[in-house]
Structures are given as C-alpha cells and as structure tokens.
C-alpha cells in the first residue's frame, strides 16, 4: 500500500513561492504548528493563505507566547494575500494592508466554510442569502429564486491544505478533539495536496473505526509530532 507517512519537510517539499495554501484552525486552535514551522524554515514566500483568521499574534495570552498558526506567517511577512473572515486579533494584517505589503479578502465565515467544502466535494457553488446587499456581494453573481435573492459562492481552491489531528491512523482516518475540529474536517481533501499533522499516530485497525470522525481517503500525507499548545 502506498504509504502516507512523511516528515514535515517532505510533506511541504513541493510548496513553492506564490502558491495557495489552506490553513485549518480557528485563532490558532487546531492549526498544525509543525507544518507552519516547516514552511518558515523552507523560506517559501508570496503565499496566498485561506484561513478563518490571522491566527494569534505574539504574546496574545501569555507574554512568552510565540505567534500561532497563520500569525507566524504574518510575522514573517510571507503572505501576499489572506482570504479570511476575521482578523481583529492580528493587527499585522491591517498594517500590511495600509503599508501595501499584503492584500486581504474578507468572506463571511459560513460562506468561507461552504466555498472550501464546495471545492472539496465537487460542487460548482452554493447559494446563500448571507452577504446580500452588503459589500460582501461585490463581484458575485446574484440569483433570485422564488422571490428571494442569493449570492453564488464559488469554490475556493488551494495547492496545499494544512490540517491538524488529535489522533490519526496510518491510512489518514482522523479525529480532532473538542473545538480543534473547526476547519480541519473541511480543508482535508479540499486542496490538491492534503497534509495532516497529528498529535497521536495509531496503527491502522488499532482503534474502533467509528472512533475516527473523518475519512483517510481525503488525506494524502501524514506527519507525526504535533504537540498540545502549552498555556
């Protein structure tokens, strides 16, 4: 069987300047830090990043905290374009926009979810009333059905998706604890290359299959060594 195990470096070996990545997690929680670290180590630049937010900035909860997730990429200045729903916690995005060093596209969170899912699950798009009559509707096709107006939200693609599992088996079946699920169950499979960094790796068949909450079919590469966040 084609094996999926990789080191973090091997997993992102094909990631090049200018590519688009999806980063799972919500304000850092559920983001695969070892994959973010590998990107910085490799020195990839000019990324387009699809992420709910900008992660967390340095010293957010404790003064010794490093940035988390997308916050690390922001601090390193390697994001040209961020596609997100909320960046209120990461002033570097606002600064980047003002300085002209980066672009930011805001998408309502539920629409961001569906755009990622549509790409993962082969839909041409979804219709939503969210954003109708607002600046979030700019440039989007509007369709009236039975007297109600909807926006067409099209799929969002990426070259790589970076996800984080609490437990993953060698086939890629995985689960995420508590609120670390967020975008992990959506982004896995949504990109051309889908990487899972896992806290705990188990052998295939070691756990009851119903323990897992998501399918290994959607996972291309698995990296061990993700750690719990230390508060």
């Amino acid at each position: 069987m084609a094996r999926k195990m990789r080191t973090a470096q091997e997993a992102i070996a094909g990631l090049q300047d200018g590519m688009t990545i999806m980063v799972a997690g919500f304000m850092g929680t559920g983001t695969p830090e070892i994959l973010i670290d590998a990107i910085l180590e490799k020195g990839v630049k000019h990324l387009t990043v699809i992420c709910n937010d900008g992660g967390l900035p340095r010293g957010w909860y404790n003064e010794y905290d490093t940035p988390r997730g997308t916050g690390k990429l922001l601090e390193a200045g390697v994001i040209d374009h961020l596609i997100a729903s909320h960046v209120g916690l990461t002033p570097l995005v606002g600064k980047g926009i003002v300085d002209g060093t980066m672009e930011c596209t805001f998408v309502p969170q539920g629409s961001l979810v569906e755009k990622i899912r549509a790409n993962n699950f082969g839909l041409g798009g979804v219709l939503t009333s969210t954003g109708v009559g607002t600046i979030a509707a700019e440039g989007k096709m509007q369709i009236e059905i039975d007297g109600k107006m909807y926006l067409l939200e099209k799929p969002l693609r990426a070259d790589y998706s970076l996800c984080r599992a609490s437990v993953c088996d060698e086939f890629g079946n995985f689960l995420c604890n508590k609120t670390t699920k967020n975008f992990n169950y959506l982004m896995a499979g949504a990109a051309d290359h889908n990487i899972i960094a896992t806290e705990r790796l188990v052998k295939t068949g070691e756990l009851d299959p119903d323990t897992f909450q998501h399918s290994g079919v959607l996972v291309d590469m698995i990296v061990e060594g993700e750690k719990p966040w230390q508060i």
Partner: protein
Amino acid sequence: MADLKTRIAKRCAKEFKDGYVANLGIGLPTMVSSYLPEGVHITLQSENGFTGLAGTCERGEEDSEIINAGGGYVKVTPRVNYFDSATSFGIIRGGHVDATVLGAMEVDEKGNLANWIIPGKMYAGMGGAMDLVNGAREVVIAMLHQQFDKKTGASKPKILKECKLPLTALGVVDIIVTEMCVIKVTKEGLVLTELHHDYTVEDVIAATEAHLIISPDLKPYDITE
C-alpha cells in the same frame, strides 16, 4: 452606564424561552445570559464549533482545546457538543439558533443593520456576524440608544432613517432594546412598544432619527429593577 447596560441585558433576557439555542455577541450581549427569567434555561452556541458554552475561564482552568469564537478559553456545560465549522454554520444559517443578541452601530427603518465596519478606520472582518443575523430566527439588537462622542460630548442617533455605514445585512433586525425603550421592526416600520419610566415618548423621538410609530398599546419597559 453600567446600570443602563444591565437594564438592557435584563430586558433582552425576557425575549428568551426555555430551551432556546442562542448566540450572544461580545460585551453587553454576553451579559444577557446572567439575567434569564426563572425556569428559562438556554443553550449557548459558539460559532467556532460547539453548543454548551458556560463562561470564561480563570487562569489555571484553561483547556487548550476549548476556545470560544473570540479565541478565549472557556468553560462548557455537561451537554456540550463539539462540531466542525460546516455544522456550526449550518446550525446558524439553517435557523437552528433561536435568537442572537448583538450590538449595532446603526439600525434603520427597514431593519437593516450595520455593525461590522467603519470605512477609513482599520477593520476586522465580518467573521460570523453576517451569517448570524441572516440565520438566527430572532435578531435582538442590544445597545445604548445613541452614540456618545467623547471629543464633542454630543450624542447622535444610531436608529436612523437609512443606515449610512456599510451594511451587515438587509432587513434582519426584529427588535431593538435600548436603555430608553423597546422598538419592534415591522413591515409598517419601527414601532415603539415599551417605554422606560425615566423617559417620555418625546425623549425617544428626539433621540431617534428614524420615524417611530407609537404603539396604541404602548407598555412600560418590561423588567423589575
């Protein structure tokens, strides 16, 4: 000011029925859950992916795997249920959230809402706000009746004929609760339904740019202070 906000939170709490699933914005809206009527138990949803929010953590109590939609570490109830963001926004957009309480910068006669961006100032993004106000069955706006300008000391109306700021959504607001009164959004326009005893109808009209229909059945502001 704190008293006024408590008053608003108490009145908002009256909108909740036992068993409601609710999503509360940050600040004043979060206070609402502290003033639920006796026998009314609600389930709080957090848009990052769970129902069963209990409150914020003290230092040392945190679980690094449990945060709320603001990124803060929080406590959960025994009936907590965690899910991914697709289910979370499915719950929100699909009308499974009975009520949301949110602040506003502006509300207008058509129930249009502006509460996410002030052009020119740095902005944060809409997050889940546009989804919430479109999806929740009842949208309650909880806010001070007017905007107080610290520099000039003047107050200016937030309940307008037409919103000037970029909208969060069209025609979504159901009810506006301020320290002065309760206003319901109807097809005919804004209807003043409850008045706090500290104010007259004329006070409210003076503090409101929008045209107000005075309910023939105008009642006192419904809380026991």
